[in-house]
C-alpha cells in the first residue's frame, strides 16, 4: 500500500544536507586558509547570502506558478487549441535567450538589484511549468471528463475536483524542474547586485580562494537537492 503520511525516511536526506552544510560552514569559519578568508567570511554573512538565495528562488518560483498554472489551464481548454502552440512557442523562445543576456538586458529597464534577478528567474521558470501544466491537463482522459459532466458535475467542479487533481503530478514535476534550474540560475543574480550564493562564487573566484568558492557552489547544490526532495514529498502527499 502507498504511504500517505510523511515517514522517517523523508527526513534522512534533509538531515544529511543540513549536517553537511553545518559541517562545511563550521570548517571554513574555524579553519580559514588565510586571513583574507577569515576577514571576508562570517556566520551572519553566510546566513544573509543563503537567505537571499532562498528569497530569489521562492519569489520567482511563486510568481512563475501563479502565472504558468492558470495560463496552462486556460490554454488546455479546447477553445484555445489554436493559440496554444503560438504561446508555447513564444515562451520557448524566451527560454533560449541565455540567462546572463536577459539579466543584462533588463538591468537597463528594471535597474540593479533583486527585481531584475527575480524577473529573469521568473522567465526561466515559466516554460517548464507551463508545458507540464498543458501536458497534464490535456492528458486527462476525455472519458473521465465525459463521465464527470455526464453525471451532472459542473464544469468548474470538474476542473477543480477531477482534472486538476489528476494533472497535479505532471504539474508538480514541472515545478520541481523549474525550481531546481532556478537554484543554479540564481547564482548569476550576484552580477546585478541581488546577492545570494553567487556572491561567494564571484568573490571566491576573484580573490582565488577555493574555500569561499566551494561555499557558494556547494551550498547552491545542497539547496537544489533539498528543495527537489521537499517538493517530491509534497507531490506525493498531494497526489494521494
Amino acid at each position, binding site marked *: 500500500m502507498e504511504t500517505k503520511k510523511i515517514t522517517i525516511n523523508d527526513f534522512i536526506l534533509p538531515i544529511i544536507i543540513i549536517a553537511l552544510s553545518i559541517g562545511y560552514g563550521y570548517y571554513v569559519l574555524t579553519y580559514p586558509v588565510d586571513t583574507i578568508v577569515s576577514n571576508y567570511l562570517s556566520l551572519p554573512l553566510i546566513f544573509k547570502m543563503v537567505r537571499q538565495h532562498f528569497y530569489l528562488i521562492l519569489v520567482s518560483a511563486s510568481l512563475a506558478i501563479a502565472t504558468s498554472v492558470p495560463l496552462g489551464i486556460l490554454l488546455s481548454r479546447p477553445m484555445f487549441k489554436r493559440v496554444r502552440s503560438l504561446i508555447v512557442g513564444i515562451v520557448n523562445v524566451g527560454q533560449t535567450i541565455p540567462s546572463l543576456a536577459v539579466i543584462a538586458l533588463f538591468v537597463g529597464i528594471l535597474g540593479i538589484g533583486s527585481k531584475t534577478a527575480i524577473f529573469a528567474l521568473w522567465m526561466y521558470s515559466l516554460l517548464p511549468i507551463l508545458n507540464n501544466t498543458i501536458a497534464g491537463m490535456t492528458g486527462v482522459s476525455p472519458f473521465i471528463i465525459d*463521465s*464527470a459532466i455526464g453525471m451532472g458535475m459542473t464544469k468548474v*467542479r470538474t476542473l477543480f475536483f477531477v482534472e486538476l487533481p489528476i494533472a497535479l503530478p505532471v504539474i508538480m514535476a514541472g515545478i520541481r524542474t523549474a525550481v531546481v534550474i532556478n537554484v543554479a540560475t540564481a547564482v548569476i543574480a550576484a552580477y546585478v547586485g541581488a546577492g545570494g550564493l553567487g556572491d561567494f562564487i564571484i568573490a571566491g573566484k576573484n580573490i582565488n580562494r577555493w574555500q569561499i568558492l566551494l561555499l557558494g557552489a556547494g551550498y547552491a547544490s545542497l539547496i537544489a537537492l533539498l528543495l527537489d526532495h521537499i517538493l517530491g514529498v509534497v507531490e506525493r502527499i498531494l497526489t494521494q
Partner: protein
Amino acid sequence: MIKIENVTKVYPGSDKAVVQDLNLHIEKGEICVLVGASGCGKTTTMRMINRLIDLTEGRILVADQDIHSVDPIKLRLGIGYVIQETGLFPHYTIEKNIATVPIELKWDKNRIQERVRELMGLVDLDYEQYAKKKPSSLSGGQKQRVGVARALAADPPIMLMDEPFGALDPITRAKLQNEFLDIQARIKKTIVFVTHDIDEAMKMGDKIAVMQDGKVVQYGTPHEILTAPVNKFVENLVGENRILKRLSLITCGEQQVNSPIYNLPGDEETLIERIAQNERLSTHQIVGIAGEEKTPLGYIPLFKYDRGDSTPLLDRIVTPPLTIHQNKTLFDALGVLFNTGERGVFVVDDEGRALSFITMTDLFEAVQ
C-alpha cells in the same frame, strides 16, 4: 418515460444529419437497446437525452418534461450514466467514486456511506476489501461494477449505458450482463442501452431499436426483430442463425412443448400402454423417467421396444439423466444435448426436481 420526438442532429459545419427525424418512446422500467453499426447515431441519440449533445430539431421529453426546460446539471444528476471506459476517477477511492453524485447532491456523510455500502453489496463487491482502494487496483469487470454502482448512487429513475460491457472479455461480460439483469429485475429502471453487438441487444433488451444512418429502421421486442425483420439490413444484422438466437430468448422453464415424464414407480401401466401405442405410430419418441420425489432417473426410447418385450421397465432406462436449471435458456439446453450426444434433458428447479423433459424434437418445434 422517455419520448424522443422528431429529433434531428446536425453537427455544425456539416450538412449531413447524424440523427434524422428520430422518434422513439421508451416505456418506464424497460431496457431499450439502441443497436447498429458505428456511426449510425446511436451514441449521439443517447447523449442527447442527458444533453451532453444538444439536439438541432425536435424535442425530447423525460417524465413528460422537455429536457430543454430544465437545468442541464439538474437533469444529469437525475440520470445514471455508464460508459464503456468506466470513466472512474483514478484519484478517488472506490467509495468516493460511487459517492460522486450524492456528494454533488450534498447528502450528509452517514447517508452517503450507508448508500455506498448498500450499492457495493448490490454489485457484489466486498465493502471492507475494496471501499478504500483506488480504481487502478481493480480488474476490468470490477471497475465496470463500480461504474454501475456509481450510476445507481442517487437512485435515478433513468440510466444511460454506452456499451457498458464492451471492453470486457466474453466470460466476464456474460457474467456482468446476467448480474445486471438480476439487479434490473429488482430496481426496474428505465434504461437506454447502446451496443453494436446484436447478441447483447437480444439478451439485454426489452425493446430493441435497430438504427441505420441516423434513423430507427425497426423498433420492437427481441422476438419481433428475430421473427419478422423488416428489411434486408435487419435480417443481416440478426444473422443467418437467427433461429438459434430465438432459442436463447426462451428459458427452459417457460418452454411449452415438452415430452412426457413418467414416474416409476407409479406410471408402469400407462407407460406400457404408451409403448404399445408407439409401436402402432412408429415414432421415434423418447420419454423421461422420474423416480420418487421427481428425481430424474433417465429416459426410455419408446421405439426400441414392442409390446412383447419383457425387459423390466427399470432396466430400459438410459442413464445418467441430464439436467438443466429452469432459468437457463433453450440455447443452453441445446448445448447440453450437443455436448453429450444424448437425446433429452430434464428441466429441474432449485431442489433438483424434474419439471419437464425436453428433447431435440421439442427444440425444433419451439422455434417453428
